[in-house]
């Protein structure tokens, strides 16, 4: 396991959107999936993770329903709503743009100026 990366401000939402877009998941599952995809390189504070979930549900990006987990426990499952899907697309584009721009700036050499 390499060095853990702090979460950039505002990126937790898009990560949650992405992981929920792959299928219906409960809170702990989302957390696991993000860590799994990120190869354990991301440190996600669990307290604020739920706050993000609450806020996103409040905003209508994700919807929840109660169901039973793989261990037959009652769990709250989240899935993407139409608004959430649109938001994910926007955020993805924005993120790509951002990394492009930042990458270009960072890769600048005296010759390219």
């Amino acid at each position: 396991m390499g060095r853990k990366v702090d979460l950039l401000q505002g990126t937790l939402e898009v990560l949650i959107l992405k992981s929920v877009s792959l299928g219906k998941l409960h809170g702990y599952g989302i957390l696991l999936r993000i860590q799994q995809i990120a190869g354990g390189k991301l440190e996600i504070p669990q307290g604020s993770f739920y706050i993000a979930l609450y806020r996103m549900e409040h905003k209508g990006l994700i919807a929840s329903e109660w169901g039973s987990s793989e261990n037959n426990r009652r769990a709250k499952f989240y899935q993407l709503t139409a608004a959430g899907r649109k938001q994910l697309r926007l955020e993805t584009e924005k993120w790509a743009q951002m990394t492009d721009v930042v990458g270009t700036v960072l890769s600048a050499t005296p010759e390219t100026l």
Partner: protein
Amino acid sequence: MSLRSRIRSWWQALAHRSQIDREVQQELEFHLNAHADHLIENGVEPSEAMRQAKIAFGRADVQKEKYRAAIGLRPLYEIGSDIRYGFRSLYRHPMISFAAVISLALGIGATTAIFNLIDSALLHPFPYVDAERIVNPSLIDLKQPLVPTWFALEPAQYESFLKAKSVDSVLGFMLGAQPETGGAFPEDVGTAYVTPNMNDFLGVNALLGRGLRPSDGSGNVIVLGYKYWQRRFGGDPSVIGHTLQLSHTDLTIIGVMPARFAFTETVGNVDAYVPWSASRAPALFPLIKLRRGVTPATAGEEFQAYVKHFKQQTPLHFPDDFHVNVEPIAAPYMHRTGQAVKLLFASVVFLLLIGCANCSVLLLARGEARQHELSIRAAIGASRLRLMRQLLIESLAIAFIGAALGTALSFWLANLPLKLMPGIFPQEAAIGMNWRILAFSIALALITGILFGLAPALRFSRPDVSQMIQSRSRTLSSSGGHSLNMLIGAQVALTLLLLGVAGAAVTGFMRLTSMKLGYDPHNVGFVSVPLKWDPNKNQPAYTSYIEQLRNAVAAVPGVQSASILSSFIPPSQPFGGMGKPYIIELLGQQTRPEQYPSLVHLISPEFFATVKTPLTRGRLWTADENRRGDFVAIVNESFVQRYLGGREPIGQQIRTDGLRNDGRSKTITSPNSGEWRQIVGVVADARNDGLERPVFPAVYVPYSTFMWYTTRIFFRAETDPRTLERPLRAALHNVNASQRIFGNEIGTLDEALTGQTVWVQQHMFSVLFTFFGVLALSLSLFGIASTVLFAVGRRRNELGIRMALGAQRSHIIWTVASTMFATIACGIVAGFAIHLAAQHLLAHWMPAGNHSPWVFAPAAGLLLLGAAAACLLPAMRAAYANPLETLRAE
């Protein structure tokens, strides 16, 4: 991001709070269990797994709060708990909270009451539909611009008026009085002849039976007014369908109007409504409902053209030069009472400010006691904003309780001016409760809550934690002194102002009651007598008929003197055709127009004896001269002083065109009424132009020189003139069995005096301002006393040490009370300064008040005395306390 989902989650969080809490808890448990399971799978001991899961999660106990914060509802929950906490802390200091609530309730109650009065009695006094669009056009004669007069229209003119573009609908009416025949005495019934659309136009339904309908045409039906129905029929509901005989015509009673309905008391007393016909009344006054969106000004322009046209048809009905004035029907009342109500409103706002200052003072005082608690809250992390919010919520809680009590109180208080000023506001006005008044009191609560809460909130939201935590510091703390002193000073200034106004009102009223009238109103009664118009009777016939009536009254046992005065009722300004001063010409003097304006009074020579106005020079005219009417006159002292410039008045010749018979109205005049008359006598001045103005130069002439459809018999009785009603009516009945008297009752000069607008207003001012002044004074004194009491409490320790070291009691009292005295003195000076600045405005709003600055001396004295007592009592208590006990108490 949909608004819908937000509203849904807010709704669920608020409405299903426990369910949401449970779900948050369940999700949390699931998370911890799942994490623990995961750890166990990875080989962690089961006993250890849960612990690690919990550590990884962080603080689990505040998860519900986090949920609320996430959906943005956290402030709401905090405010909820602030409110609960606020009420608890109000409850913890019950005396202070009670005093604060009461002082605010009085202020808000008084303010809401006056607002209610303005709303109900001035802005919306009439129970008619669309009353704000109903206007009564009047004419302003450019020669007499102060007195607008109504104009009556001939039926054809009325019909053409209906077509005006600004007019939505018109109600035509004419007042008359008819005798009810067939009883012991002919009873006078005030009748309004109305076009049969009355009930539709005004939008008021009958209480019993039905109102008038267009289909009634000009039929023989009658709708009764409520008071007349009560008086004449004892409120008998079976009266519908019966007949009432007026002037020997049988009218079928079809309905009774509701109690509040009194159309149109603006013009005169109305007992019943009869459909109009040309034979019942020759002309109609128009009452107009304007079309929606038409302003009175544009309507006035249109009506001007119409009335110009009407004047060409009937020139005698209109003045030579005029313009049409269109105003909503409530406007005249507004003109008349506007100033008084402004003054009332200004003073209740002062009262409210005093109440607010009092609350501030009390909260500041209480805040001192709460500093410990607040600094603990600050020490464990409450932000300044949070403490301010807490304190403001407490003051708002006081404000809202005060407003609720005040609004209830205002309902009673708002009726007070109506009761104190009968006849000043429209009779149909009723104090009610509506959303405007509720919104006003809620707004007041919010504003006052923030106003008086702000100073304490700002001050106590930044407690000096380090100092307060060292429990019970023994410093000589004078914290809060500045704002506290400012508030007390302001309170004292406003109280002095209110007391000063109360003094001006009371002494002004006393001046009115002790005013030299020039006549003695006590035990003088009068009856107004309608005369039947008969073209076959001439001036001598009318004169001898009136003389017969007068003789009959004079012969009634208990009557000392009876006389005729047909032109006015003292002390008011005369009314009708005789209302305006006439231009008097003096023989041998060049008379420029408007040189010798005088009021002309039509009397019989016994009048001066009846009202005890002394003759100062010359003689009264004889009975013969009185019957003839011409060639004689008596003038008052003002006339002699103003117009005769030291010349001998007796023998001077005067005349006026005003007494000529111009044929405009049904008048009977003597042959030479407008010719030269000799002044035969001079009488002392008696009030004839209202109480607020000096006596106007007056010319008295025999009543027989100018008569119209009504005359008035005045008589001096040995006791209350009203007790003579039956013998007096019997005496008149003996002269002429069909002779009735207006209103079926005897009027008295005492009543005419106390019914004067200025009298009624000044009476109301003196009662209300005494009330307001006493309230303000007690509020201020309470504030002062509690401030000193708290200051003493705070300095107990210091005072104890001083006394233990041998300080004199007088010194202790001085130490405690000196700052307060300085503050009070500043307040008194400030109040006096404000009064001097506002003097002009006060004189404008209360014309009959006493505006000498000396009325301030007793007010300031009273305030000083009260303030000294309020200061010294707690100071004395401190000075006489046992220093040992005081020190031990710490």
